[in-house]
């Protein structure tokens, strides 16, 4: 506590403002995560915590550390940078998994044009008329074949790696 007693008032106010801001935003994000009902809505709520929620606490920490050390400290910004850069990886994994599930179930959550997989709408453009029979099993066949060709194209690349 003694170390904290020597902080000038304006630094204390500034730092506590950012701590409270960051903590409140994270709390609201968690609240939204608990209260929202649909998956696609829920992935938005925690982004409050990962943007200004993290940011506020980082800024407060940097202000305090800079005051104690007597020079500009920005170690904390590295944390912020790493959070920002890695968030898309998890979010995309979750988002695409949900999309895959909803497409497989032909879920009404998705707008009709998104229910077909993205690949067969592009590869099957000339023969779109045949897709009119709404049969989930036939519409899945092009997807698997398309993936087959994709992985076949990849293999020469992997051979190169071996060399």
């Amino acid at each position, binding site marked *: 506590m003694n170390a904290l007693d020597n902080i000038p008032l304006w630094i204390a106010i500034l730092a506590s403002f950012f701590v409270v801001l960051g903590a409140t935003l994270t709390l*609201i994000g968690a*609240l939204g995560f608990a209260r929202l009902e*649909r998956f696609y809505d829920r992935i938005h709520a925690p*982004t*409050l915590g990962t943007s200004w929620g993290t940011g506020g606490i980082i800024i407060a920490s940097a202000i305090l550390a800079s005051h104690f050390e007597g020079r500009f400290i920005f170690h904390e910004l590295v944390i912020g940078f790493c959070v920002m*850069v890695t968030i*898309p990886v998890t979010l995309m994994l979750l988002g695409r998994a949900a999309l895959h599930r909803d497409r497989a179930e032909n879920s009404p959550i998705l707008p009709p044009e998104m229910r077909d997989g993205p690949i067969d709408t592009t590869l099957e453009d000339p023969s779109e008329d045949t897709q009119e029979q709404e049969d989930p099993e036939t519409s899945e066949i092009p997807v698997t074949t398309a993936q087959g060709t994709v992985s076949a194209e990849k293999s020469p690349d992997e051979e190169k790696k071996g060399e």
Partner: protein
Amino acid sequence: MSRLIPHPMLSVALVLFWMVLTSFSPGHLLLGSMIALVAGRAMAALHPERPRIRRWSVVPRLLWTLFMDVLRSNIAVTRLILTEGNGKRSSTFLVVPLTLRSQNALAVLSIIVTSTPGTAWIEYVSETGMLTVHIFDDKEAEHYRKVIKETYEPMLMEIFE
């Protein structure tokens, strides 16, 4: 040179990172450099597209726009979550056709989209260049379409392509 240090920019950035996080000493410089070289070679094994930043001058403008956008949408999403009970908010999917093709630019765009509350990157199809984004508040869909298409995409194309 290029065999030993395949990704000079990455390696230099890693050494700087290491020196910032530890207090400066010759030992740490050596250790940091070794890690940076190994990381550079590991990166080369993945065969990524080589990042080429053509115009550094656009970067501060991009960061500033992102900063203001994140601030703005933080306020918007906070308000929406807190007033969820009485509001008639509905969310929507937004499909944006992108002309951006550089992998690195797309990676940066994904960071921009996900770090802005209220937008979530759902899917990108490289064959068609179609990006699907989920928008928390459908009243803002047009705004975000504009922001992605008319603000961020031209900036990223200036920087990377």
